[in-house]
């Protein structure tokens, strides 16, 4: 069964791994992924991110169908990996491995 709306079928291969509900999961996926894998996600989403956001905007936030929620979560993962891809060229910011900064609550979805 497709996780994403059919308009975004080309992003489907990324959805199982990156359509994650919470920042904690997205952060963990980022720190345990290779730069190449994150680059692939980034490159796939960036040309369509405008359309993807516009698609999600068609629904009220609290009444989004599951496939739109998955798409939104994939956009969040794009945001998450963009720092590694655009700035750091590694998983975490340089010189930050000795610390954590846990997000303990967030609005959903």
């Amino acid at each position, binding site marked *: 069964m497709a996780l994403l709306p059919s308009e975004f079928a080309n992003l489907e291969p990324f959805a199982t791994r990156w359509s994650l509900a919470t920042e904690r999961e997205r952060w963990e996926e980022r720190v345990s992924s290779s730069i190449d894998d994150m680059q692939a996600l980034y490159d796939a989403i*960036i040309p369509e991110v405008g359309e993807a956001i516009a698609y999600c905007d068609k629904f009220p*936030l609290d009444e989004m169908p599951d496939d739109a929620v998955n798409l939104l979560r994939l956009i*969040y993962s794009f945001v998450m990996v963009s720092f590694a891809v*655009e700035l750091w060229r590694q998983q975490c910011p340089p010189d930050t491995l000795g*610390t954590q*900064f846990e997000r303990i609550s967030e609005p959903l979805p």
Partner: protein
Amino acid sequence: MARYPKPAAGSWTEHYPQLGTGPVSYEDSISPEWYQQEREAIFKRAWLQVGRVEQIPRTGRYFTKDISAANTSIIVVRDGDDVRAFHNVCRHRGNKLVWQDFPNEDTSGTVRQFTCKYHGWRYGLDGSCVFAQQEGEFFNLDKADYGLVPVHCDVFAGFIFVNFSEQPAQSLREFLGPMLLGVEDYPFGQMTDRYAFRVECRSNWKVFSDAFMEFYHAPVVHVGQHLSPLRAAITQMGYEAPHYQVEGAHGLVTTAGSLHRVWDMPKENVKPADLATRSGLFGPWDKSDLGELPPGINPGKVDPWGLSSFQFFPNFAILIWEAGWYNTHQFWPTSHNTLLFEGNVYSLPAKSASERVGREMAAVSFKEYSLQDANTLEATQLGLESGVIDQFPLNDQEVLVRNFHKATADWVHEYEHELAKA
């Protein structure tokens, strides 16, 4: 050449002559004895911010908060229009009254009464003891004498403050003073989309706070948050604030809007993901409409205005941003060289997915730079603890740091003085 005019005295630091301009000792950040004095003199006497009223919207809603610096945990509970605070300790035999699964972790929930997990004594939302198990077995027990121990509690602009002294020397409003009271009419209460963060760090609470009182470090520690072709120029330019203000122990720094208006910058200078989400380090680009802001948000009348960072002594800060959002920082010492840092990012409830995406970008940016700060400050603590150096020069962009360390010392010395008199 200064980019912005300095006060007539020649500098912000000299504008407040009580601060001096000499090098500063950081013995106050490595001494376990000094920390014990700070606990007594500051954390048991100053008004401390512990949360927002939106966390306890209805009668019976409560949260607990461990305040290691004051050696206690408190319960903060809503009872009608009142917000009350109590020490989280059962009057029967001292069990921590409210906790869940882990005795040393904070919790929250809704109750009609608080029931002790040990022998079942119960307390009303006003703290009174309403039930003692097998009351007849006791000897002349009058439940009226066994209410929860109250903590002074007051609310300012929806922020809940507590004070552990028997009788606070000042009311909350007196303690805050005109500069901080100036933020009162900002619509904090409407800004309920909240991203909350925490980290425990190996650094003194003041060493950690220091980095959130000056932006002198920003073009160095955080320069990597910009695209690489810009980095050299940003570091070269350095940081200057157009306005500083010191009011007793509290402080304010305002930053110019021109630094933040990413949306006005040439596109090639902006991260593609920022362009895609219309958001970034300085928050979402599409300004939230908050109506007219109270003049107290920008007392230096900086134009264009970008950010005001209000430092609430001793350990809380509110940062209000031009784009219509705010964040808070709080620094809770857990020993002389460890702390709990709590950060929150608040905005109006998102009305659409695109607004959520913008807030997500802002919240992720907040994490990226907080990680940089946190790790750097552990390194600073290590350097200070070597004890090799005991005098450190502070520049004019570090005026709030200078004031903060002086204020903590003043509080400790005043308290000693009071004790000596008594």
